[in-house]
């Protein structure tokens, strides 16, 4: 069968694709091609870069832990129960997706900062967020949580409710059923959501800067270190960027492979 689509249309779509690929791919090439890989690795060896990477790993691990621990039951609740005001709750939980990070930062300070609604109580408990590592975690958790929640909710929603019912009739209570049947059944979506949320937390910049500033070892995560060094030491910025690029690429590829395999 021959296509009746006019030739100019095909040409336009191919051109569009070529443009999109070039636009998205050239910056990646730029990061990797500007400086030889050997020099990139050696430039990571200065204390600032390593501190920033270490801080990024630590804070994102904590953020992700909080997101998964709190988000998993919340997502399951939203996916399986119908209740009044559900749409409102969902909207609130997804708001960080579209909220400008600067607004998120200001909001976090206004709520949990020293002069904020709960600020003095948190400060007394040693959990102040202004200019602290705790603030970095708060910013990452705030902006990254919807990425996990959306995926988890979709995964729980797609699960056959008869599986949980079967588990109950076999003697497992609600909590045991959740742990032994519901979570394993939704595992693919949960891992995907966690990977996406981790990627977002790793790249978090604006809200972190506003809430916690950019202090080496305390709040200067990898993206903030890139920002701090790019005007003075572009090669160091490139080296850190290459690391984040590799991590992001690996994450995305991992998710693709995982969800591709998990599909029926």
């Amino acid at each position, binding site marked *: 069968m021959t296509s009746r689509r006019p030739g100019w249309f095909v040409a336009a779509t191919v051109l569009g694709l070529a443009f999109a690929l070039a636009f998205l791919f050239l910056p990646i090439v730029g990061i990797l091609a500007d400086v030889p890989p050997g020099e990139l690795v050696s430039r990571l060896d200065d204390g600032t870069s390593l501190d920033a990477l270490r801080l990024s790993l630590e804070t994102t691990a904590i953020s992700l832990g909080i997101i998964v621990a709190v988000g998993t039951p919340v997502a399951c609740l939203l996916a399986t129960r119908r209740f009044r005001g559900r749409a409102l709750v969902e909207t609130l939980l997804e708001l960080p997706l579209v909220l400008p990070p600067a607004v998120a930062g200001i909001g976090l300070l206004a709520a949990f900062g020293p002069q904020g609604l709960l600020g003095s109580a948190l400060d007394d408990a040693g959990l102040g967020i202004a200019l602290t590592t705790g603030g970095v975690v708060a910013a990452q958790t705030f902006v990254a949580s919807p990425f996990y929640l959306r995926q988890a909710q979709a995964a729980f929603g797609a699960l056959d409710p008869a599986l949980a019912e*079967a588990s109950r*009739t*076999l003697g*497992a209570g609600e909590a045991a059923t959740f742990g032994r049947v519901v979570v394993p059944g939704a595992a693919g979506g949960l891992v995907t959501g966690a990977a996406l949320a981790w990627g977002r937390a790793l790249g978090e910049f604006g809200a972190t800067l506003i809430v916690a500033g950019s202090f080496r070892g305390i709040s200067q995560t990898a993206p903030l270190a890139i920002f701090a060094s790019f005007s003075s030491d572009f090669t160091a910025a490139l080296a850190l960027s290459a690391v984040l690029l590799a991590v992001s690429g690996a994450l995305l590829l991992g998710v693709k492979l995982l969800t591709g395999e998990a599909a029926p």
Partner: protein
Amino acid sequence: MTSGLLVEAATRVGALELAARVEVERGCLALAGPSGAGKTTLLRIAAGLLRPARGLVHCDGDVWLDTAAGADLPPERRRCGVVFQHYALFPHLSAHDNVAYGLRRLPRPERRRRAAELLERFGLAERAGARPRDLSGGERQRVALARALAPRPRALLLDEPLSALDARTRAGARRELASLLRGAGVPVLLVTHDFAEAAQLADEVAVLDTGRIVQRGAPAALALSPASAFVADFTGASVLVGMARPAPDGLTAVALEGGGEIASTDSATGPVAATVDPWEVAVAPADRPPGPTSARNRLSATVATVTPLGNRARVGLETPQPLTAELTGAAVRDLRLAPGDRVVATWKATATRLVAR
């Protein structure tokens, strides 16, 4: 308080007004009826997966649900085995782990032994390590049954256990299920929309229509004297048992228990249950010479009952196995059929369904 399982419920689910009560002492009661009649709803109430507005569920003297007294045992404390319509096997667990799922309270070696023993009994020993997606439809059904029976439930509920199978697998699965249900030793409630299936698997059938039990009785009794035109249309299928062997022209001959032989276009050998719908059976007086006919099955019979149903009538025949014919009211009048009359029942081999027994 009665022994066995008692389920009584009055509730509204969507457009359905359910108000029904069923009791199963021992053996198997089939809940039969059209889609949307409330069969599955009643089953879910028994299992504790659905709570009715008003209801009562007792099992061997224990109260599982009593809305008047505020008692409602959660499903995990009822010990009620359920086979779901599409089996609901846990996709991330092997066949063995699915069966062992309900055995958490046993120590590990004992759990393993019981699961292995059940897999063996259901012919699944070879498939113990396979995930549900790699099992055939019949294997899935057997895993679901083994899983439901593993914790030694006090009642067994089956929701259309054969409907997810293709026609070829279904006959074999139905035979296995029948022998299993006979040895289950606990009250069994089986939901089906197929009267023939109910007649072959259950000791008694309760017909449910728009939320109400319209008639209850042994399958043969229901087919013989349906309480309403609805039950008459829904119940049919007389069951004749016998031994099948291949016959010429690709037919199967069945020597019936108690005498007589019939033919079927279905193939089978060994013990079988033959079913024929009442509206397929014609009746002629025995003292008149038979005219030429394409019907290959002819059985001498005695009229046992005549039950008028508007413009038609159900005629109960003894061949000596019970056989039901459905005739027009006019035919019954013309032939002056009455209990005790000698007649010949005829029907086509193509209308005779065989199921291995």
